[in-house]
């Protein structure tokens, strides 16, 4: 800036000097600002959102989401506003196939993702451009190299009451449920904690710090990668499934053997 100003002083008497100075000043400050904001964006978002990406996202939004979320993402009586939900929320909802929703009901179901990665990134960039919100976590943030024991402790305190101690999921009220986490990807877990999708509470960074979240992911990925220590897990659903198995299969077997013991040979 300083050197340019000095340069402009030398060309004081030239006719286009003023215009040149203004143009140069605008270029430097505007360029610098653009560079700075891009740098911030790049930090938040692994894929730098370009204007063309945002435009593509906007088009996809108008074609696929606006009917429920409103033409300006302001929300309708059928769906919440998306202003301020951030890229993380979009990435979670769309990449897991929850959005676009297939039908209204107690809970939006998981299905095969409708859009590819490029389209999801574009929609996320569009929603993120509306208002600041949680960004998509980087790969390093969701790597499973955290503290496994601590992650288990945090999971049991904050998550296990709904998602089951083994991450097998569980029922909530009136047809809602906490999904199983046995197939869930690490990024999806992080985004769910950060954004609190549907009826799940929000676990912001003051509640569970990024390190806490990483530890929890480490624990869940460990559970996914290691088979049950105790034999037949019966999907880890707990005493109801285990009781049903014992009463029907095991007791049935015992009765069959007893009948055989008492029956006379042919």
């Amino acid at each position, binding site marked *: 800036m300083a050197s340019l100003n000095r340069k402009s002083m030398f060309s004081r008497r030239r006719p286009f000097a003023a215009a040149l100075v203004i143009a140069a000043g605008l270029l430097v400050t505007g360029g610098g600002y653009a560079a700075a904001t891009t740098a911030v964006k790049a930090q938040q978002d692994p894929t730098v959102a370009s204007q063309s990406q945002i435009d593509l996202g906007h088009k996809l939004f108008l074609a696929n989401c606006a009917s429920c979320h409103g033409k300006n993402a302001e929300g309708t009586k059928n769906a919440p506003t998306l202003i301020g939900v951030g890229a993380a929320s979009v990435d979670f909802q769309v990449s897991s196939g929850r959005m676009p929703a297939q039908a209204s009901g107690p809970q939006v179901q998981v299905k095969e993702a409708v859009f590819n990665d490029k389209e999801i990134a574009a929609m996320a960039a569009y929603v993120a451009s509306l208002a600041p919100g949680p960004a998509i976590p980087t790969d390093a943030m969701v790597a499973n190299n955290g503290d496994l024991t601590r992650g288990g*402790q*945090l999971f049991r*305190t*904050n998550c296990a*009451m*709904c998602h089951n101690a083994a991450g097998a999921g*569980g029922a*909530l*009220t*009136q047809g*809602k449920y*906490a999904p199983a986490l046995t197939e869930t990807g690490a990024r999806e877990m992080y985004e769910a904690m950060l954004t*609190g999708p*549907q*009826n*799940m*509470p*929000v*676990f*912001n960074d*003051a*509640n569970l710090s990024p390190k806490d979240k990483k530890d929890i992911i480490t624990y869940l990925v460990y559970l996914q990668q*290691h*088979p*049950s*220590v*105790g*034999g037949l897990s019966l999907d880890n659903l707990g005493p109801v499934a285990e009781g049903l198995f014992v009463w029907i299969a095991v007791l049935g077997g015992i009765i069959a053997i007893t009948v*055989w*013991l008492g029956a*006379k*040979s*042919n």
Partner: protein
Amino acid sequence: MSDKKGLVPASHDSEGFEHDYSAGLAAISADKIADPGLEPHRVRMTDKSVKHEKRAARQVFYWFMASIVGSVFSIVAYFAFPISEDLGTVHNNTFFMGLGIALGMFGIGFGAVHWAKTLMPDAEVAEPRHQTRGAEDVRARAVEIVNLANSESGFSRRKLIRRSLYGALAMFPLPALVLFKDMTTDADPQETLRHTMWTAGTRLALDPTGTPIKAADLTIGSVFHVIPEGLMPEGAHKDDYLEQKAKAAVLLVRVDPTEINSQKELDWGYDGIVAYSKICTHVGCPVALYEQHTHHLLCPCHQSTFDLANDCAVIFGPATRALPQLQITVDAEGYLVAKGDFSEPVGPSFWERTAK
């Protein structure tokens, strides 16, 4: 036993009794269903044909061989699926070893039973029961022995020592009752149940890290699992950490204040941040399944559902009382603090708890 008549004392007949007194004193009605006797003997296939007999013998042999295979397999499995540092390896080790041991044991059992059923002698044998009443001379002798013991020991005659024995017998279980006392704390159990660790000014801290929480930390829809500050497994409450935690655990939620339907709930909270006891009023499970849009708070044990937007009133399930709310405010540094203990006992009812 077909000739019951012979067993009936003659005197009874002459007195016109309608009952047939056979063995023992059980009255048997005169029109009782006749003893069907044994089924006609059915000869087994293994007794009729050598081919079947040989096949049964082979089957028994196979069962015992299967047992041997199972036992050997179990030993092989122990070495083939070693337990390493990775706990997951326990699964295959115990599963395949157990499968082998099961086959080893069931093989012996099934073989032995099959052997007995198909190859061992097949003849029905009736083993008649003898009378339960002893012979007259045996009964008289028993009475004689009891009387002799009484006269020799002087049990009836020596009243003083007999009664002192009764006293000793009555006293000796009492030390066990004193031991039971150790199963409770010295403190008055009522007081223990009525009060928790929360006092005016106690900061709300995160479970399990113990980090104090600022009001600004909670975004709308957040759920924090909270313990009183200072409640750590290694701190001042080393000895009663779990007891204190079981009473003082709190669920802290931030709700949009416009969605709260109770003025009391708003007043006892701070800007939509409300703190409720996590201990179910039914049987004390931790109630923590919070749905951020319906504001339903569900207990995982028996599905008691509380409405967090309305004083945590019970809207479903076996619980009968709302969850107690903890009055909170913020201190000078912006940390959330309790205004005091809960205004009523937390958790399930107890005898002395007066209904509110």
